């Protein structure tokens, strides 16, 4: 069915042009007013990315995220494009009361948009599973063990040796003299225990969190990248745990291996360890918590 020749642009096209002009005008005004439009544009795109990863596992997640993100953007543009195209192109001309072709469906089309998404999600599932195996991998011999104890509303970090004996307990969850100190380049195992309700150990720059469930000890491992020595990362409880949930933050301080060993040895010398609940009650023999890399 041929459509009658257009004598003037439709209202939809006019509206689209008007909106485009407005947006363009706003951008021009912003540039003239001194707003750094390019920086905002860049920030917008990077804002749709998680922070740069500081652990090996986090880097694997970020690489996975890139693939998921690109597929998401592609799907969005294709489907949204179809929507916008339909809305603009198939707008009814005023005065046209005839019926369009009454297409009921098309089995081939149904097959295509069933099979293609199936392939896409199968691909996403497989690469996610592969990355999960990296993130959740547990090596038989971690080099540093820490028990992160969560309670309403504070974190306590208990450094253990490989037998589970307590070496040193850090009661201050953040600050220069507090927080979780970790050596770079080594495999660190965190054990999570809760005194009361469910909390969650979350460090955005690890691209990782794990729940802390009372009655259960979750464990996970990570390796901080060598180049991160000397940096501090924010951590925060990520499971609603009561009225000061918003304030249950902690710091993670990355140190070189040598600095970490020295620090731990000094703390153990200054504070002979007392057994804390959940640890074995045998007194710690020697402060040989970590083997040097």
């Amino acid at each position, binding site marked *: 069915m041929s459509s009658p020749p257009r004598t003037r642009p439709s209202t939809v096209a006019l509206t689209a042009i008007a909106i485009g002009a407005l947006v363009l005008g706003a951008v021009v005004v912003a540039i003239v007013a001194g707003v750094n439009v390019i920086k905002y544009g860049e920030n917008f795109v990077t804002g749709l*990315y998680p922070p740069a990863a500081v652990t090996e596992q986090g880097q694997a997640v970020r690489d996975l995220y890139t693939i998921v993100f690109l597929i998401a953007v592609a799907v969005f543009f294709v489907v949204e494009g179809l*929507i916008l195209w339909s809305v603009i192109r198939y707008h009814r001309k005023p005065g046209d009361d005839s019926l369009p072709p009454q297409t009921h469906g098309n089995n081939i089309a149904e097959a295509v948009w069933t099979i293609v998404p199936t392939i896409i999600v199968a691909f996403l*599932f497989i690469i996610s599973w592969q990355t999960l195996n990296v993130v959740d991998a547990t090596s038989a011999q971690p080099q540093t063990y820490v028990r992160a104890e969560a309670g309403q509303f504070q974190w306590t970090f208990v450094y253990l040796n490989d037998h589970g004996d307590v070496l040193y307990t850090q009661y201050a969850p953040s600050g220069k003299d507090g927080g979780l100190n970790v050596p770079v380049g080594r495999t660190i195992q965190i054990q999570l225990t809760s005194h009361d309700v469910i909390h969650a150990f979350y460090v955005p720059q690890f691209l990782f969190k794990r729940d802390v469930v009372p009655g259960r000890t979750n464990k996970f491992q990570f390796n901080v990248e060598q180049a991160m020595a000397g940096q501090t990362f924010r951590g925060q409880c990520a499971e609603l745990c009561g009225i*000061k949930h918003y304030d249950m933050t902690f710091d993670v301080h990355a140190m070189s291996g040598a600095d970490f060993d020295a620090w731990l040895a000094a703390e153990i010398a200054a504070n002979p360890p007392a057994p804390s609940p959940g640890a074995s009650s045998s007194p710690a023999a020697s402060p040989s918590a970590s083997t040097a890399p």
Partner: protein
Amino acid sequence: MATTTLHPVATAYKRSTLYDWVTTTDHKKIGIMYVINSFVFFFIGGILALVVRSELAMPGLQFLTSATYNEFFTMHATFMIFLFVIPMLAGFGNYVVPLQIGAPDMAFPRINALSLWMLPLAGILLLSGFVTGGTAAAGWTSYAPLSEDYPLSSPGAGQDLWIVALILIGTSSILGAINFIVTIFKMRAPGMTLFRMPIMVWTVLTTSVLVLMATPVITSALIMLFIDRNYGGSFFDPRNGGDPILYQNIFWFYSHPAVYVMILPAMGMISEILPVFSRKPLFGYKAFVFATAAIGALGFSVWAHHMFTTGAVYLPFFSLMTFLIAIPTGVKMFNWIFTMWRGKLTFSTPMIFAVGFLSMFLLGGINGAFSASVPVDFALHDTYFVVAHIHYVLFGGSVFGIMAGFYYWFPKMTGRMLNETLGKVQFVLMFIGFNMTFFPMHELGLAGMPRRIADYAATAGWNDLNLIATVGGFLIAASMLPLLWNIFVSLRSGKPAGDDPWEANTLEWATSSPPPPYNFDHLPEIRSERPLFDLRHGPASDH
């Protein structure tokens, strides 16, 4: 004013007294009261959200204590889910389904009335917490042990009131589901086979099956929590050998299908509106039905994707099933788009909201795929990214769908047309406000802002986006003003609608607006899913 040869002999008789409305068993009046009740709680939930957003606009606790803040976001979600979206869709179903299948009422009209009146009662129970020492404050998910008895939770009966209210609402839903299933299976007009039912009826049927099977499970979880809190029980209390993860499993076994309860009828409404305003049939009707059934079935197999970070879940299975659900959802999206394709589209307000639905729900589906990938979910779970996802599907999806359905069926319910200009103003304000509020939340979550926090550090870098989100929230609130004004003005002096103002396809348009109490005097031949279209154009035209 246009009438048809199907216009009934006797239209609604004038007996609309308060007593009539309170005691009615007429599905149309009950449906309207469901809608009104749901709007009231939409506004209450919305005000709670505005308060939450106002507190979060800038770092620092400005005017709420964190205890009150926790109550407010808990009740915001509770009202929105259980007293707005779910009953609003049930209300539209109540009004529309018997009309669309050519039935005079629902199968059990008195139980229908009972289902309705349980809702304001539950709402009052929930609200009473605000004036009796505090409402529930453990999130709408109320995870144990935080929701267990004091001192793990706050003192006071707020959580108990919440449990009782939800059990009431669940019972109302289950009774409604029984009503819908029996009505749809047993009371269709002659000629209306299952595959000639409107898609709206199919989605309500599927939703009802989900409600029937899933809601009792959360009832059991709520009862167990109540026993833990009040009778020294130990279901979920780790101090006595109980298991908090058990609560999560039972809770999500319902609450995941619940999200399909919250979206499927809205999808049904969109599936009615797009064909009418494209002047072509729905593309791929049968594929639609199968996709709806697939979503319903698959919806029972994904619940633990809410629990990926607990360390207590078999991750690959739930991740796979979650990815799979994207497929029937995508089928629907394409079928909707190709309904419009090569059609002749008119953009009355229902159609504008329907197209808005398509775009916004698309984003909600896409950002859901991020969470389906387990390692990505480890980064994004319990952050504002999830808040963005939730609201893109529930607001961008369900609310836009509800608005489309409201503008579409308001003429049938009241006999008056809503004003188109005010409708478009509402859409523009709501669309801009909605995206302004929730798009930044993707970035906030990716940057590391957790959910359910009353305050955040000024140095975290989250200030600007939170402020933008709050401004957007107030824009959404502003968009309610043209809606309310539109309703007020149109009820009094809106253009008379006539039987079939939209030139639509389904049976509800084959009677007066509003319909007489018994719905129909005559029914047309039913030989396809568009009986009115067939009547208008004759069965031989091009299908």
